[in-house]
């Protein structure tokens, strides 16, 4: 294992994970005001109507697929009696449906964000970074799903990428497994770590605020006016911008 491999497949993932965790703690404590989905439906609704649900529901399916394919070991599905061909058929078929949803959705969303001036104006620099990384991850995830597993000969990432990925969480990453994987999987994985690293600093944090609690809480919320101590100077987080200051 070279120092290069060590950096790329061990240190970088752990750095990204650490940034992910610490970044979220910091953002949650410091920047409740900036924690929002920052919807642009007000500015543009025709493309969003199809693009946004396609992208979000497609992404949910893709995440579920990654849990099945990467987090659940191959031995487990074998023990259940699911043959490799059946797994391969299911993963490529379901993966293709999810991939089509994601790619069509993200294409519409990327178009409106880059081309429609009202939407473009709301995009902060770090959102551009997240958008580019998302684009890389999605395209490099879809090429193997459709090009290799559906149309091509197939590649069993469960015996390479998955071993390394699960090893990271066990504290014993199998670097050799990932270094022998095709380049496309390597870039896909690296871009994914990069997204996790920038995640807490972008609007992607809204994913953790999906309001499931709404299903149970009472409709009308009452709160009493509690006196709050004024916050110490410099600790109150992001606030209203002064007039004339750009976001």
């Amino acid at each position, binding site marked *: 294992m070279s120092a290069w491999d060590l950096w790329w497949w061990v240190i970088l993932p752990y750095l990204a994970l650490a940034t992910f965790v610490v970044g979220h703690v910091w953002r949650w404590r410091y920047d*409740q*005001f*900036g*924690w*929002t*989905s*920052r*919807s*642009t*439906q*007000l*500015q*543009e*609704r025709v493309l*969003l*109507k199809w693009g*946004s*649900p396609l*992208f*979000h*529901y497609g992404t949910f399916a893709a995440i579920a697929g990654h849990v099945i394919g990467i987090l659940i070991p191959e031995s487990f599905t074998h023990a259940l009696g699911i043959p490799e061909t059946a797994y391969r058929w299911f993963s490529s078929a379901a993966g293709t449906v999810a991939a089509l949803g994601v790619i069509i959705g993200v294409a519409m969303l990327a178009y409106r964000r880059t081309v429609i*001036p*009202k939407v*473009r*104006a*709301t995009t902060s620099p770090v959102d551009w970074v997240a958008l580019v990384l998302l684009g890389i991850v999605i395209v490099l995830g879809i090429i193997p799903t459709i090009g290799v597993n559906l149309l091509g000969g197939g590649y069993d990432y469960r015996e390479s990428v998955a071993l390394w990925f699960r090893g990271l969480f066990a504290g014993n990453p199998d670097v050799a497994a990932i270094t022998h994987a095709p380049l496309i999987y390597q870039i896909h994985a690296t871009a994914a770590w990069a997204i996790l690293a920038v995640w807490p600093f972008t*609007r992607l944090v*809204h994913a953790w*605020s*999906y*309001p*499931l*609690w*709404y*299903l149970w*809480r009472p*409709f*009308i*919320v*009452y*709160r*009493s*006016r509690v*006196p*709050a*101590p*004024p916050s110490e100077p410099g600790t109150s987080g992001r606030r*209203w*911008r002064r*007039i*004339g*200051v750009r*976001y």
Partner: protein
Amino acid sequence: MRVMAQVAMVMNLDKCIGCHTCSVTCKQTWTNRPGSEYMWFNNVETKPGVGYPRRYEDQERFKGGWTLNRRGKLKLKAGGRLHKLLTIFYNPELPSLDDFYEPWTYDYEQLTTAPLSDDLPSAHPKSQLTGRDMAPSAGPNWDDDLAGAPEHATADPNLTGLSEQVRMEFEQAFMFYLPRICEHCLNPSCVASCPSGAMYKREEDGIVLVDQDRCRGWRFCVSGCPYKKVYFNHRTGKAEKCTFCYPRIEAGQPTICSETCVGRLRHLGVMLYDADAVLAAASVPDDTDLYEAQLSVFLDPHDPDVQAQAERDGIAHDWIQAAQRSPAYALIKQHRVALPLHPEYRTMPMVWYVPPLSPVTDAVHATGYHDDDPDQVFAAIESLRIPMEYLANLFTAGDTRPVERVLRTLTVLRTHMRAQQLGDPIDDELLSSVDMAADDVEDLYRTLAIAKYDERYVIPKVHAEDTGSLQAQHCSVGYPDPVTAPSTHAADTLAATGGGSQFRDDDGRVRFNLLGWNATTRAPNLFGEGGR
């Protein structure tokens, strides 16, 4: 019975001259920040007209407010909780910015930097969303004073059901102004629509607010409010709404729209209501019963039983006293001349309106009679179906009887006061036609016509006796730390004039607490007095 208090507003529409001062001062106070350009927490609409945002009253399209399900239970018109979570990525009922308008400013710099030329330089409109040139095609008062009425006024949702010919006559017959703020409803559908639980109704004064730190920008409050008085800040991605100027209300001052109202048409006062009765009142089967149902929720602050229960429910004594002097209570419940705006939305709104008599008197004028003659006005009230039905569509879910009763009362008020001033005998028959005694009419006259500042705005201060110690923690240099030694301030607070207070510090010296001091009086003992 669970007694709660709410600071409510009543607007007397006959006195509104449509000057927009309320809107402008409100905007200067609250919505002059980036992203809030298109927000008008207070706006003044010309009626008939489309309103702001355009056709907001069309709930078949925007699905705001509540409705009854098949079993007669109250539900959000836009769909239930699961439906909201599933449509969270695209909210089908959200108005687009086109329903408001694209905010713009002007390129004023061009006026001073343009090269010398024979032509006067002009300031081009620039979009405040993109910074690009634009041609404004809509605005917050695009149909002000019936401008473009053939196009805009006939699109007024309140005119649906009236025939085309009637619409045009109506538009030529009269107009009036409708100032609107957030209704701070007893049963707020925006609060119920917020998936994050960021919106809440304050227990002390009923003001509905958005917690900007908890809002996640899911924007269901915007579509959930039938009055479209929650706005989405397109720069911060957070919801914003009329705050009822809560910092001013807490200090016992009227909202800025009331304070600056040129016509002095706004009244502010405490309403006591039975919180346990709200849901049942909002669920009555017939839309036209909602006005009476909401009236039944309000409690009489002069009733000893209500007072006792209010004390038990933690309402301060000065708030109960304020409720007894409340002009809102007088106009809404005692004299019953104020009506709620669109009770059929079932949100139990708390900004009420005295409907305008001027449409009727205008019509009497147009037929060549004098509007001093109550018989002519009564006849007009009976025969003029158009303004009656229109006003009823606004204020009583289409039932013209309450509107007629209010307009008769206002007519009797005018006639009685005119007779009194001219020394004519009191017409008891006229008074009994609206079931009022001369004292009642004169009391109503005082409230509507000559009430001074402290009679129009009866607002008890918030009870925040314990905030001083928290506020003082940043000025503890040389003073005892209020957090570690809280007893020093809380126990020894002495009243002082001008809103400030005095306290005895550890050294036994009396000092002046500047918190709440309004600078109209001296600040005695600012540097410590007596003691060691």
